[in-house]
């Protein structure tokens, strides 16, 4: 199994209602992609809440 070694400082953490997201990004493209990922999580959380209400 691959071993994970954290060598880069964490940045751009995102804190949502039920999540802490910690990306390991080093390029502007990665940072931009992570922002899109956070949007997806926000959308997913809304869907989860709606499902619980229904």
């Amino acid at each position, binding site marked *: 199994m691959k071993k994970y070694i954290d060598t880069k400082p964490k940045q751009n953490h995102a804190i949502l209602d039920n999540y802490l997201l*910690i990306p*390991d990004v080093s390029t502007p493209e990665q940072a931009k*992609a992570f922002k899109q*990922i956070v949007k997806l999580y926000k959308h997913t959380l809304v869907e989860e809440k709606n499902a619980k209400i229904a």
Partner: protein
Amino acid sequence: MSNYGSILVDTIRPFGHGVSNVATVSTGVQYGATFSTSYGAGFTAFEEITVPVPTNGMVTELLLGLTVGLGITVTTDCPYFRIQLKDNAQSSYDTLFSIASTRLASLVSTTTLVDFTASRVATPSDGTYFTGRGPFQVQCLIAPNASTSKALGAMKSSSYLTYRYYLVG
């Protein structure tokens, strides 16, 4: 999104609302009792989450971990826990992955954490099921103590699900 290479994302999710889910399914759910669902005998789900994946991205490795903080002192018929993984197109939750903790020893105190991590990491090349496209769904389950009230009290706010994955796009 433009080409971003590979991103490692760590996620931590406290159970929070999951505790109330346990309450809703507690009646009649006891370890050792027949529980005729896809969860497996004795197990019931207390948390289900979706791991979203961008349409132009692909998950190449996914690690799951579950830490459960105990809210009771366990005596006999001790509970244990399981985490499962499937992708959105599959019906059975253990299609991609399933791992269970060991059953707690008796007289485990409230200061003990049940802490275990999935040992299997799926990659697109190691099986026919895992495409890496997602979205994925993770399910946490408990096989409760013979006393349902103890099952309800088996978790407290220090419980959380963790997962980390490589996203390539």
